[in-house]
């Protein structure tokens, strides 16, 4: 077994009176791709935000290679090699595509390799090259999503946390994105993936967690989860009736 890089224990997070996470336990090993799936409002984004330091937990611990992250400032966490590609993209709209990508490499000092990485990202998403000097805010939704992912890659992270990376992308690009995720894995980068596209996500993932209203209700290998009755029913939409239940969950 590989070393545990990320260990979350009994994590509880609340927004005022709303309890979004009610005691999450989760671990990620070196080089693994871990998928997190769950209905809307289950707390997936909250989990990622807490790991990246944007939210402070009410209880519980997060450890990165044995070091506690819980009281660390977000920028400090980034410098440790965890990068968060957030939901809603958070591109810097008034800045150019170039600036956005370079901001991704903010914590790096290896100028030459940054340039190389920039070339790689631009090769991956040719549209970003075309719009290199454009204001990022004027990109189309999908283009912004590509920019957000590309920006995350510019950090050369040890752990990459992707919050719904396929959101708003054309099918052909989604395929690419999952290729990229596979590539990351091949390069030994650990990936924590939140996806609505559960089927695809579980396919590329080594392991998966299923979240429901702030709790982990299932965790297993990706392949097992794909086969699991519960997952199929609730998240893959294979059963035709009773869709409303999942919707209001």
């Amino acid at each position, binding site marked *: 077994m590989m070393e545990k890089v990320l260990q979350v224990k009994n994590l509880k997070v609340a*927004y*005022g*009176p709303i309890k979004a996470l009610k005691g999450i336990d989760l671990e990620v090993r070196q080089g693994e791709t871990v998928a997190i799936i769950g209905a809307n409002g289950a707390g997936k984004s*909250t989990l990622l*935000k807490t790991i990246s330091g*944007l939210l402070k937990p009410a209880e519980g611990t997060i450890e990165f290679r044995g070091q506690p992250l819980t009281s660390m400032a977000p920028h400090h966490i980034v410098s440790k090699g965890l990068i968060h590609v*957030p939901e*809603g993209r958070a591109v810097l709209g008034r800045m150019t595509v170039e600036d956005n990508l370079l901001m991704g490499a903010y914590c790096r000092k290896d100028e030459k390799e940054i340039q190389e990485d920039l070339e790689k990202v631009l090769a991956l998403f040719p549209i970003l090259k075309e719009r290199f000097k454009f204001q990022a805010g004027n990109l189309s939704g999908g283009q912004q999503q590509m920019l957000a992912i590309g920006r995350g890659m510019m950090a050369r992270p040890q752990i990459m946390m992707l919050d719904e990376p396929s959101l708003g992308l054309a099918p052909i690009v989604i395929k690419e994105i999952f290729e990229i995720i596979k590539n990351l894995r091949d390069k030994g980068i650990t990936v924590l993936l939140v996806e609505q596209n559960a089927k695809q996500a579980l396919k590329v993932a080594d392991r998966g967690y299923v979240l429901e209203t702030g709790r982990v209700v299932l965790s297993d290998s990706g392949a097992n989860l794909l086969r699991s009755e519960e997952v199929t029913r609730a998240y893959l939409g294979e059963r035709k009736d009773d869709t409303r239940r999942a919707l209001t969950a």
Partner: protein
Amino acid sequence: MTESVFIFAGINIILAISLYITLSTGQISLGHGAFMAIGAYMASVMTVKWGFNLPLAIVAAAIMAGIVGVAVGFPALRVKGIYLAIGTLGLGEVVQVFFHNFKYTGGASGISGMSGTTLYLVWFMVALTILFAWQLTHSRIGWAFKAVHEDEVAAQSMGLNITYLKVTAFGVSAAIAGIAGALYSHYIFFIDPHAFGYHTSLLILFYVIFGGAQTFWGAALGALVLTLLPELIRGMQEWRLTFYGILIMAMMVLRPQGLISHDTINWIKDFFSKKSLPKTKATEEAG
């Protein structure tokens, strides 16, 4: 504490509610001193020069200031945020210079001889203003103001005419400031353009933010507290400004949303309806 303190408090409450209204559409005005000036001068000319009675003069002041407010509202549409704040501040300064050089109202020497504002009249107008503000926030136009404040593009796409709404907010707000001006001038007997500079405008903003810009109750309470406060700390003599400043800074740290926020109102409502339904709190938007 003398009657005059409560008269100024009342006038300041009216001003604060007036500013709250423009603010509720997301438009920051630092030119409200000018609307007050227009009301004050209009009313003074009506009573002193043309011999009308005060109630009529107040109405005329509201109309005149309202018209100017609408006129300002249109160009203000193009300008946003701090540009609007400083732009209106500039406009206020221009109005001030206008009155300085407007011979008919005495220029820099001012105009005098107004009287008739009483405590009852002021607080009657306060009551009317609060009633108006209450009705406003509970009507669809009040919701519409808020929607415009939140997101103009979405508001338009929901069928709201933001031009109408923003200009109306300016007009109504200016008219109310005009009323305050009329009351002020007829209490203080004498006005010159000095009384309505950017200091006055800033002070009104102070009231609103200190009291809470989310509800008109906040604005009103802010005006009341900040008018009475200097009287309460008068004993500190020349140190009271220092104290006043520090107090406000401390308040902004402890309650940046102001004395009264939505939550306060909800809390009060819950308290009186005895239902202990925990309302969701407006927390910081994560992400």
